[in-house]
């Protein structure tokens, strides 16, 4: 389901995705907290102003107003940086949206280390936070195709949906003709044996890079993309784990409470199972800087990952 040939990029994926969605669905409202430009919903703001609402720099209000908008019959898509949606307005997300049956979508941009401005702009605990909210849906798409399709599914889901967003140069990796986002489904991007790599979101891009290196080095492995962190196809996930000698999880997130913990929970619940090596932000603060720099510092660059995956297999 991966596209062949040279990778192409979309410079502002959500501008198109949000505009397309709002054009088709007049009940969708993009809500912003002073970051329309940075979350790339400018086309909606300019061309469909009735479907755009700015609450100012006030994220608690962003979430609660959006919840109110949902209770009056619209489908709000609250957009801001992941760090503010989650760390700043978590209680509002749990209470105003999480306990409500109305569809309320929150898209958190520049998640994990995908922001140059270190701790205060990096949300490396958001997946864990949202995963522990009862009934919530949590999605971490890997590219433009995944992102667009997941949002189309999200607008018809009940309750709180938290999704990580992509902005800026985002690769097109999945073939929209062959890939179909289904809630909870996992996708095998490489098939092999020995080491099983499980990744989500941005980290699936990184895992693909590492996978290329491993392939060149002749190291057998599989790669599973898990865009839905909750609810996930636990049986499929467990089957994948138990079919391999060892598992490596890769996520753009702290190595606790997120994808790695999810996999550990699923495997432990079955009992037995392979060793799991969790890669991500290792229980400390990530540095600031450009994404390649931060990845390198954390050993999450392609070469670093390839080495660590090989190491885990020994």
């Amino acid at each position: 389901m991966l596209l062949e040939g040279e990778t192409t990029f979309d410079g502002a994926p959500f501008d198109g995705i949000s505009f397309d969605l709002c054009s088709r669905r007049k009940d969708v409202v993009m809500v912003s907290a002073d970051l329309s430009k940075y979350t790339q919903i400018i086309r909606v703001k300019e061309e469909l102003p009735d479907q755009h609402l700015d609450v100012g720099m006030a994220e608690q209000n962003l979430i609660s107003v959006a919840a109110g908008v949902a209770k009056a019959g619209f489908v709000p898509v609250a957009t801001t940086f992941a760090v503010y949606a989650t760390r700043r307005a978590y209680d509002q997300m749990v209470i105003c949206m999480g306990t409500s049956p109305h569809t309320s979508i929150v898209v958190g941009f520049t998640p994990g280390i995908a922001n140059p401005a270190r701790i205060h702009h990096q949300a490396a605990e958001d997946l864990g936070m949202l995963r522990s909210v009862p009934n919530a849906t949590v999605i971490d798409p890997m590219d433009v195709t995944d992102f667009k399709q997941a949002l189309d599914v999200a607008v018809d889901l009940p309750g709180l949906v938290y999704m990580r967003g992509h902005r800026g140069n985002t690769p097109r990796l999945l073939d929209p003709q062959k890939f179909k986002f289904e809630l909870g489904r996992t996708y095998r991007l490489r098939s092999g044996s020995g080491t099983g790599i499980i990744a989500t979101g941005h980290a699936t891009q990184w895992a693909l890079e590492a996978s290329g290196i491993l392939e060149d080095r002749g190291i057998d492995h599989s790669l599973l993309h898990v865009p839905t962190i909750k609810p996930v196809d636990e049986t499929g996930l467990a089957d994948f784990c138990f079919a391999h000698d060892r598992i490596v999880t890769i996520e753009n997130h702290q190595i606790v409470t997120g994808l790695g913990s999810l996999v550990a929970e699923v495997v432990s619940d079955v009992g037995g199972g392979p060793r799991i090596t969790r890669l991500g932000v290792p229980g400390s603060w990530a540095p600031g800087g450009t994404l390649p720099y931060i990845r390198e510092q954390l050993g999450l660059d392609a070469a670093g990952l390839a080495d660590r995956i090989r190491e885990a297999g020994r």
Partner: protein
Amino acid sequence: MSTGSNSRVPDLEILAAKIRRNTLDICMQRGGYAGQGVALADIAACLYFDELRTDGKGWFHDRFVLSNGHDAIMTYAALAEHGSYTLEELRTYNADGTKIDQSPIEGQLGFEITAGSLGQGPSQAAGIAWAERQRGTDKRIYCLFSDGELQEGNVWEAAMFAAHQKLSNLVYIIDNNDLQASGATTNVMSVEPVPEKFEAFGFFARRVDGNSVTEVLDAFEEAKSVAGKPYVMVCDTRIFVGIDCLREALPMAHYVAQNAADWEAGLAEIDAKVAALTGEA
């Protein structure tokens, strides 16, 4: 200011007395937020039996958002008069396994939002007001919250937004009872001057005696005449107003345990008041 609403006043005062009685009846079973329910009875009577328009199907056309979870007792006590709940079911308030939560979740009859985490109602009400206006409905949105909640920053975020959006279909009702969990609001963290704050935030603000049916009705009426701004009525109330024996015994009771009050005396007093009011009416 009089708006000709006076003819309705005696009826609403009777309803308020009955709401007070229901509050005691419910809270005396296992304890509860009786003081607030009693103090809010006049606002509840005006709101549910005069201000909120009916939808012709036994419910309301306008929307009421309760922010302050423990004031749910007011809604229960009022909806018992409305016939939406029976006193029998409400008497399970505070019992294990009951559907009558002290602090209800969204979807429970009478409750638009999950209340209880303070300061979140005003934003949600503003969101509803914006969306209703966007949809072109004529619904009016009322949101009740407490003076203590003004300490939550979320409330000021909401206020700034509501004024900026000129939500004239939005009415904030502040239960200014000068009491929060740890004592008098004035002592804990003064929030006054409340009307001045809201005026500075772009509201039409009015201080109201929250235990005067006439004043509450007038404020509701005035709110409809204000264009281009949200309206806030800062309702001064005091715990247990209207039941003197409890007011004297428990002037600062945020919560009343079952065995902490002489409920029988309170009931006797309010029963006598109801009888007197209906006798005159």
